């Protein structure tokens, strides 16, 4: 079995509230999976448990052959291979777009400055922001900031990128430019796990939609199947609601 990512029975509680109640799934290399579900369902917590930004209470996660959740695992080495794109971008405010993209290759991988700069320019071009290399985050629109943060993740040549509601903090007119970049990535074969309510994106590129509620996976399957023949009434209900709310953007 050569799954790229394996998540097995992950539990997480905050105080007395159990946010994740045993979540399991896996991903093949090159797959894109979209996680949907009502807010407070533990979708973001799930992503953070995968790269241990939040430690899981129970359960295991593997990246390739390595168990991420093992306490002996060098978590920094693992994280360097897993991109993470935040809802609020979290670009480093004191660095330009170029600086943001090249800092991790330099400091984490020990890449030389010239080489890292070259790489950063390539990645910025990939997200359509070559001309904004010298701009600081505060000088960029939300959509541009999120594209820089995707470039920042790409510059580490990740095996997998986790997206935590990447377009939720954006003004409606800026969502398209970010989704465009993500669709292109998915088509290039990047392995992506995306928490989002953008059903247009899900329909276009997701191999599977995972519907979560109350800390468990209620149902999962290819988008077409979930949209037309959901097994659970609740899944159909939720899909209809978000399609209404967010519209079909494709």
């Amino acid at each position, binding site marked *: 079995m050569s799954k790229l990512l394996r998540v097995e029975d992950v539990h997480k509680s905050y105080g007395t509230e159990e946010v994740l109640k045993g979540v399991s799934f896996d991903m093949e290399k090159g797959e894109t999976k979209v996680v949907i579900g009502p807010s407070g369902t533990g979708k973001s917590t799930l992503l953070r448990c995968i*790269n241990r*930004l939040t430690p899981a209470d129970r359960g295991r996660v593997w990246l390739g052959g390595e168990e991420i959740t093992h306490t002996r695992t060098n978590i*920094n*080495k*693992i*994280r*360097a*291979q*897993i*991109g*993470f794109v*935040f809802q*609020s971008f*979290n*670009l*480093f*405010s*004191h660095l330009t777009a170029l600086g943001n993209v090249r*800092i*991790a290759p330099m*400091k*984490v991988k020990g890449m030389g400055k010239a080489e890292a700069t070259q790489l950063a320019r390539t990645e910025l071009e990939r997200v359509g922001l070559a001309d904004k290399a010298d701009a*600081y*985050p*505060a*000088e*960029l*629109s*939300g*959509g*541009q900031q999120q594209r820089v*943060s995707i470039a*920042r*993740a790409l510059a*580490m040549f990740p095996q997998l990128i986790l997206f935590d509601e990447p377009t939720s903090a954006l*003004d409606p007119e*800026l969502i398209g430019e970010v989704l465009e970049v993500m669709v292109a990535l998915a088509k290039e074969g990047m392995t992506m796990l995306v928490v989002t309510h953008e059903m247009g994106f899900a329909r276009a590129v997701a191999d599977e939609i995972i519907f979560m509620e109350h800390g468990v996976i209620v149902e999962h399957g290819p988008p077409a199947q979930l949209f037309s023949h959901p097994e659970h009434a609740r899944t159909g209900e939720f899909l209809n609601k978000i399609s209404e709310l967010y519209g079909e953007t494709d």
Partner: protein
Amino acid sequence: MEFRFEWVSALAQGLPLTLNITLTCIAVGIVFGVLLALGRVYGNRPIRWLISGYIQFFRGTPLLVQLFIVYFGLPNWGITLSRYTSAILALGLNTAAYQAEYFRGAIQAVSGGQMMAARSLGMTMPQAVRHVILPQALRLVLPSWSNEFILMLKYSSIVYTITLYDVMGIGKRIANRNFKFFEVFVIVALFYLALVFIVSMVLRFIERKVRIPGLGSSGEVRGRRQRIFGRGSA
């Protein structure tokens, strides 16, 4: 009223020592202050508790008392330090405590998302602090930290009490000899005023030099203006 130019030139000979003590103490204070602040934010409970005690002590007791403990008190324990070393030690440890509080505030003002983003890229905690948190915190702290610099410049004058001849020490000596307290101390005051003015200018210059859009007070104003005129890529 009497004015003699020789007073001014005599006082000017105290300038190197005043500047030396101020700059050395500020430098000691930056190094210790940053370490203390990091310990207080990221350290475990005993470390946080210890640092908090240190800061409480140095902020809760008079600087003059601290200086006297070091210079007059330590010799009772067999530790005799020169007057200069005593001054640096007492003033340096004191300003470190104040600076630590400024730095701590600034470190905590850098959003948690910055640390999370740094860690998500594979940076270790020390790398994240060094490359992401501190460069931002030090810029944020600059305006309030400048205050501490200026206070230190003025507080350094208490070293005259252990007969060091900084500007104040020389002033005291001239005044005593001539019984011209008013005139001499007004000139001393003007010396400090001029120093404070110059230091403020230099600090403001540095502030402008390291300013980054979106970081610190200037950025907030900018952000507000952008919001009024509507956000966008323009």
